[in-house]
């Protein structure tokens, strides 16, 4: 394999892996903040127990998100230096802002939250988790704005001498609809994942008769988080589809494996065949739905892959007549369906869990406990599939219409070097994944801590040599 292919694999592996931890953090941190606020407002110790229980899961997860995130920032320069040269003037700005505005905020205030129980008054301590949560969301915003620029570059011009992109409107980069909608969609999906985590774990604990009084209320919190998020995911996904059909019509066509431009395009739910354009056969297709999803009009025209390929050949003659502008359709087609399907599964779970646990009822059975233990995996796989679709659907471009992925790779990088780093990252990541999952399960099995001292800050004030309330 060439350094280019290997670099693509490495970026894919490390990014998908990084993004397993990110959505869980993005949503869970707000839910933990919510539990702690509920405790602060009501004084009900159960909420404090939930804060600590889910807080510990959050931190195990957050550590992985942080360390795998550093790799992301370095990789642009390491493997994609021609890309970095080309876009640095534009793309570097949101990354630097992410550091200054978001990373400092989240890491500093999360540190204060973890270790500050006996060092800060209750209210101040509560504010640290909210600030950390704000930091995580801001961080998501900047990186999504940077990504949106790769999907739909705006606010720049090309320097005629160097051929590189030069920023001329930072507002356009930060606030274009591609960025705001991607943020809306990603945050909603992250809350869906986190809601599934909370609901699944809480339901599992209740079914196992563990601290039922503590965990029963959390089932509802998780389930309603899923349902509200599912609605918001759909609304934002719909908005996303409508701008995508304008900005990246090829991605929409590839998502649907629509090869010829057609009116009243159907939405195929499932199909068989190799999706190569001739042999794919829809087994379930809803007439007109795709046109409606893409434009709001069931009879509207949707452009097909072959037509767009022709159009791009004329538009970008510099790549020659052999250039293939079509993404890898099986990935985009199934990625898109997995994203929607797995997200909907979580919503169904939420409905079931609300019904099955209504009042004081508790469903029994191995299937239900297994489903609850596994439910977080479905939307997590769904959000992964969604991003794989988004990024693979942009191919062959690294910056849509401006630079191809093949042109973005570091020119002198040797395949050997990338093999070394890719195997290194993959092995470390695999080992850490096993450890992380084992630790999460262990923490869940321990249950929520019993709270003996409710106000460690007041206690610590009385006795200066007191043991630390929280220590590694």
């Amino acid at each position, binding site marked *: 394999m060439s350094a280019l292919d290997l670099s693509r694999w490495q970026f894919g592996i490390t990014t998908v892996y990084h993004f397993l931890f990110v959505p869980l953090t993005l949503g869970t941190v707000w839910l933990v903040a919510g539990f702690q606020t509920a405790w602060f407002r009501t004084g009900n110790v159960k909420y404090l127990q939930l804060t600590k229980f889910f807080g510990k899961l959050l931190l195990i997860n957050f550590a992985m998100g942080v360390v795998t995130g550093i790799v992301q920032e370095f990789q642009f320069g390491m493997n994609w230096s021609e890309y970095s040269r080309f876009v640095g*003037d534009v793309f570097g700005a949101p990354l630097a802002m992410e550091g200054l505005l978001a990373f400092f905020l989240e890491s500093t205030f999360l540190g204060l939250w973890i270790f500050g129980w006996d060092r800060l008054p209750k209210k101040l301590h509560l504010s640290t988790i909210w600030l950390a949560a704000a930091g995580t969301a801001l961080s998501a915003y900047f990186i999504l704005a940077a990504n949106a620029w790769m999907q739909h570059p705006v606010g720049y011009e090309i320097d005629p001498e160097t051929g590189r992109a030069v920023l001329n409107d930072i507002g356009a980069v930060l606030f274009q609809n591609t960025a705001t909608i991607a943020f809306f969609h990603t945050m909603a999906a992250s809350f869906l994942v986190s809601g599934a985590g909370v609901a699944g774990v809480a339901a599992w604990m209740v079914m196992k008769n563990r601290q039922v009084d503590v965990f029963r209320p959390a089932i509802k919190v998780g389930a309603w988080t899923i349902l509200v998020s599912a609605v918001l995911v759909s609304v934002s996904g719909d908005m996303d589809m409508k701008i995508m059909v304008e900005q990246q019509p090829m991605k929409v066509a590839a998502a649907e494996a629509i090869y010829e431009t057609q009116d009243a395009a159907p939405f195929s739910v499932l199909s068989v065949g190799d999706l190569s354009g001739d042999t794919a056969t829809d087994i379930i297709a809803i007439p007109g739905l795709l046109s409606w999803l893409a434009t709001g009009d069931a009879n509207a025209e949707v452009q097909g892959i072959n037509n767009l390929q022709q159009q791009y050949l004329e538009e970008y003659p510099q790549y020659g007549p052999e250039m293939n502008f079509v993404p890898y359709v099986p990935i985009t087609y199934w990625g898109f369906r997995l994203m929607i399907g797995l997200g909907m599964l979580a919503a169904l779970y939420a409905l079931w869990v609300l019904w099955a646990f209504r009042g004081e009822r508790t469903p029994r059975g191995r299937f239900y406990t297994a489903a609850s233990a596994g439910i977080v995996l479905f939307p997590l796989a769904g959000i992964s599939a969604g991003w794989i679709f988004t990024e693979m659907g942009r191919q062959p471009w690294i910056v849509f219409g401006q630079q191809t992925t093949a042109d973005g790779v570091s020119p002198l990088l040797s395949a050997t070097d990338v093999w070394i780093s890719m195997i290194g990252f993959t092995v470390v990541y695999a080992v850490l994944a096993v450890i992380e999952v084992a630790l999460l399960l262990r923490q869940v099995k321990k249950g929520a801590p*019993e709270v003996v001292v409710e106000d460690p800050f007041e206690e610590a004030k009385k006795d200066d040599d007191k043991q630390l309330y929280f220590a*590694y």
Partner: protein
Amino acid sequence: MDLQTIWFILIAVLWIGYFVLDGFDLGVGMLLPIIGKDDLRRRVMINSIATVWDGNEVWLLTAGGATFAAFPLWYSTMFSGYYLALFLVLFGLILRGVAFEYRGKKDAVAWRRRWDAAIVVGSALPALLFGVAFGNVVGGSPIEPVAGTQPDLAGSLNYTGNLLDLLNPFSLVLGLMTLTVFMAHGAIFLALKTSGEVREASRKAALRIGVVAAVVAVVALLWYQAYSGNVAFTLPLALLAAVSWLTALGLTLRGRRDGWAFVFSSLTILLAVTTLFVGLFPNVMVSSIDPAFNLTVENASSQQYTLTVMTIVAVIMTPIVLLYQGWTYWVFRKRISTSMIPDHPEAGRADDRFATAGH
């Protein structure tokens, strides 16, 4: 002053922040086997940095991001050129970051030993390799135009060496300098942040390692004068750094002013990094092949608009970040001793007992 120069200074400031702050927690990590004779002592050491290491590391991320935004050609050439070295840095940072969080999650000797090893290796690799990387940036490394890349000269400049070229004598000495200085800096931090037996052991370690670091640093910084573009400034700066370091060691020896000792060891790092950057200016990466292939603040930078936007963001945000990060240090200012470490990690003197129902 033009914006390029301002950003050169800002990036120097970010690296100073990173080396002063993460420098001591990398140092504490490397000192685990030296000062941490038993688990309790090791936990005192880890808890002394637990509250701040993550925030300290953000200085690195921000330095990286700022270099990308302000000097994209510098970022691209350096990060792609130093590929395997940076991979090892990342490998180290991944290991130690996870180790801090996971080490106490299981009460088993073998488990903790493995994470301790991860912390030591994960701290030593970046401590050594950042010095090596800077040695190549300021001392020069094979950089030349590569055909078929960007149309202009500056854009076509790439690092054409390999990993072994990075490990040249001057850069290795600079790497040893960061390694030993961070270790001593970490020990001085521990002397300030702990009390009792750990503090005593840290003072001793600080003095012993500090003397070695002084020798290595003097060799490195004097050798650097051969590469420095501004000897009139870098030589006095290097001498000031030496004086500051000796002051830090002297204060550590007397052992009454731990805070001042830490201030002076931080000042030493500030002066040493300043020496490197002053000698580098107006270059940002020196080519060992031909000075015409140097990347400079002029040819490697972003355009005025980007620099202006980023300047506004930096001017507003940097003081705010310094303020709240400084506040964290104030909140956790208390010295930690072995008697303050609870028996069970995260369980705080049995205030939070885990429910055993269902087991």
